[in-house]
């Protein structure tokens, strides 16, 4: 057992996860039954594995993450009864009703073998449908009726939890559970993300799914941007060199005078 507590140096291992929420508009009937009649939406905030299970109607969640996550703590708005919700087993999610968007604190605690502290992130609970703000202005959120017609709202962030130099025992646990790889090609809609406003159209029409295509697409976007920056730099450098020559000439002339 002693050698199990040895860190495996020079190795980092990550697990792809997603966190975020899904929200649907409550029907009038549901609102009547609901103890808080001002609530307009039902939402689920969750931490899941990135890949979606085949034929599932949720985003992600193909793998049970409890093999390395001990607990996920969702800290809701203070107006909710006991706002700190500890979820100790799969699925790590909280479902509630509400009327407003707010910041959810998500704290992930790992199993003891990991020897790691908990990590925290934030998710902005998204209730209203995505709208493109291409001109920089925030358009009016559509009315509840239109929002209801547009179907559930999805707001998910992909991320990777990286363990550096893990303990041998923890590494063994992790390698015993290889994550389901993301599908290579897109079959379902793309999860919308504000960093890629262009994906709005592709995000419509059903439950989205994370794919390797998205990663490639983003890599391409970054690469294009980098090339653009570099061509721009080259242009400016050429200009700079030209200017320097000009300055040199001027200075020589001043010297001559």
């Amino acid at each position, binding site marked *: 057992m002693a050698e199990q507590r040895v*860190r495996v140096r*020079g*190795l*980092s*291992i*990550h*697990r*792809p996860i997603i966190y975020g929420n899904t929200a649907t508009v409550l029907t009038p009937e549901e609102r009547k039954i609901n103890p808080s009649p001002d609530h307009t939406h039902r939402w689920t905030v969750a931490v899941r594995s990135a890949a979606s299970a085949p034929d599932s109607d949720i985003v992600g969640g193909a793998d049970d993450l409890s093999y390395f996550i001990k607990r996920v703590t969702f800290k809701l708005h203070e107006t909710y009864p006991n706002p700190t919700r500890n979820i100790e087993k799969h699925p790590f999610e909280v479902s509630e009703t509400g009327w407003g968007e707010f910041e959810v604190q998500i704290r992930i605690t790992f199993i003891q073998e990991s020897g*790691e*502290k908990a*990590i925290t*992130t934030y998710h902005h609970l998204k209730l209203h449908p995505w709208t493109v703000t291409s001109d920089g202005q925030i358009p009016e959120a559509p009315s509840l009726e239109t929002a209801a017609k547009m179907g559930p709202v999805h707001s998910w*962030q*992909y*991320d*990777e*939890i*990286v363990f*550096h*130099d893990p303990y041998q025992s923890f590494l063994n646990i*992790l*390698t015993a559970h*290889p994550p389901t*790889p993301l599908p290579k090609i897109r079959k379902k809609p793309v999860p919308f*993300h*504000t*960093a*890629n*406003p262009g*994906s709005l159209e592709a995000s419509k029409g059903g439950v989205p799914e*994370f794919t390797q295509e*998205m*990663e490639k697409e*983003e*890599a391409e976007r*970054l690469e294009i*941007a*980098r090339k*653009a*920056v*570099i*061509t721009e*730099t080259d242009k*400016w*450098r050429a*200009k*700079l*060199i030209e*200017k*320097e*020559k*000009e*300055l040199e*000439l*001027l*200075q020589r*002339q*001043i010297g*001559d*005078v």
Partner: protein
Amino acid sequence: MAASAADVRSILSLPNPSTPGPSQTKPKVPGTTERSRKPEGISRELYSLIGPSAPTLAAQLAKPRLKQKPNLGGGGRVKWEWQSFKNNGRTDSLHLSHWTKAGTDPEAEYTFAKYNVQPTSYVYSQDEYNRFLEDKEWTKEETDYLFELVREYDQRFYVVGDRYDFPGGPPRSLEDLKDRYYSVCRKLVRNRPWAGDESSKMQLISSFQFDKEREVTRKKYVASLEQRTPQQIAEEDALYIELKRLEQTERRFKKERDELLKTLLGVESGLPDISVEDEPPVNGNGLHIDTTTPVTGNTRKTKKRGVNDVDTPTSAGPSSANVISLGQPVQKKAQSAKSAQYDAQHCIHRTDANQTTSNKAAHTPVYFRSYKLPMLKNPTGPRIIQVLSELGISHSRLVMPTRENCARVDGLVEATMSLIDTKKCVDKVEQDIQVATMRLEMANNTGGEGGEGGAGTPSAMDVDEDAEGVEDDDGRAHSVISSRSTKSMRGRKQSQRRSMSISSVDTSATGSMPKRRKR
């Protein structure tokens, strides 16, 4: 080869004499011509000796089967035409003609135009020079001069080395020039943001590799090779032959010894299994151990004997070491291919273990990948964010913050920083230019007034007229200088004036842009 009389006759197609040569006898028989034709693959002389009663073997002596000659586009007649063509590789409008096959499109691109590749000439800004290219052996002026020459002579360094004459500079050898040129190129490539991927950058850098020491040594060596006397060459050859002979003798000796030992010890000696090739000769005792250890399988025994006998471990050692050194790389390779797949499946990324162990105390705790995105807090941060948002990239959030994508963001931010730095430098130089122009104008105004009496010489005005035509603001000032200078020493001033007018055109071409924008 001497031709027989019959041959001569047959060449000259003369009738046969009454006493025919041996070669002519048989073919002359009328009915047998069909059969007696020389089968292929037999030389005429041989055939004439053995005659048509050639053994069946002769038939098998077929012509050696060579590859069939390739059929290069049929033997049809090709028509050629004298056509003029356009060479896209030319910058001038010279039109040349050449012979082409009839039917080629005269408008088609010239096939050799693509080989007219212009070498990329590297230029650097003052800022870049100050940051990366400082060298105490070289001034910036001399480096500029070198780069200008290299560009002018298309990187033909022998020409560059021949023409190189920097006034006031130390004498430079060809290697000095190459070393400086390549080192500057390397540094530029390394420090500038690179549009392609890492491997192509490495490739380019390695193409600029130049080892001055080695080149000098190489040339020295070649020179010394050339300067050997015949005696020395003969001696070297003799020594080489001697060496070869010694090696051969040694090999033979070894082989003989092995054979002898085999005969002495029998098959169980185990000798064929052990590669004796590069082992030192062992004495009888050592060999005895070798033979016994596999049988008993007792390692302790060998150890014990090893203490007693110094030779035993050496005799056993190399052979076992050989086995290991042969076996390991193969194993390792197979492992790496397999483990890469394994790592990908389990999302494992391995770094060099030695690097991480150096700072053992600092353990990086678990983190979200996206939290390692660059924090843009330094003074240039807001500007970087602005540039990135113009490109439609969010600096703080990624859709898929994988390791590769985070690294890409790093690269992007780095490139953006250098863009901003360059822009800053341009701003600074532009300001300097403005200051300098103003100073120049002021100096010229005062100077112009002082020398007004001399201005107005017609010849001076002629020379500078073109400059003035292009120039609005600065041109006048220059013309004043030059006109003033024509007063004395005509010959010398003429050239100076010309350079003046050229320089003023230059500045007008480059300098008018920012000014216009400012207005």
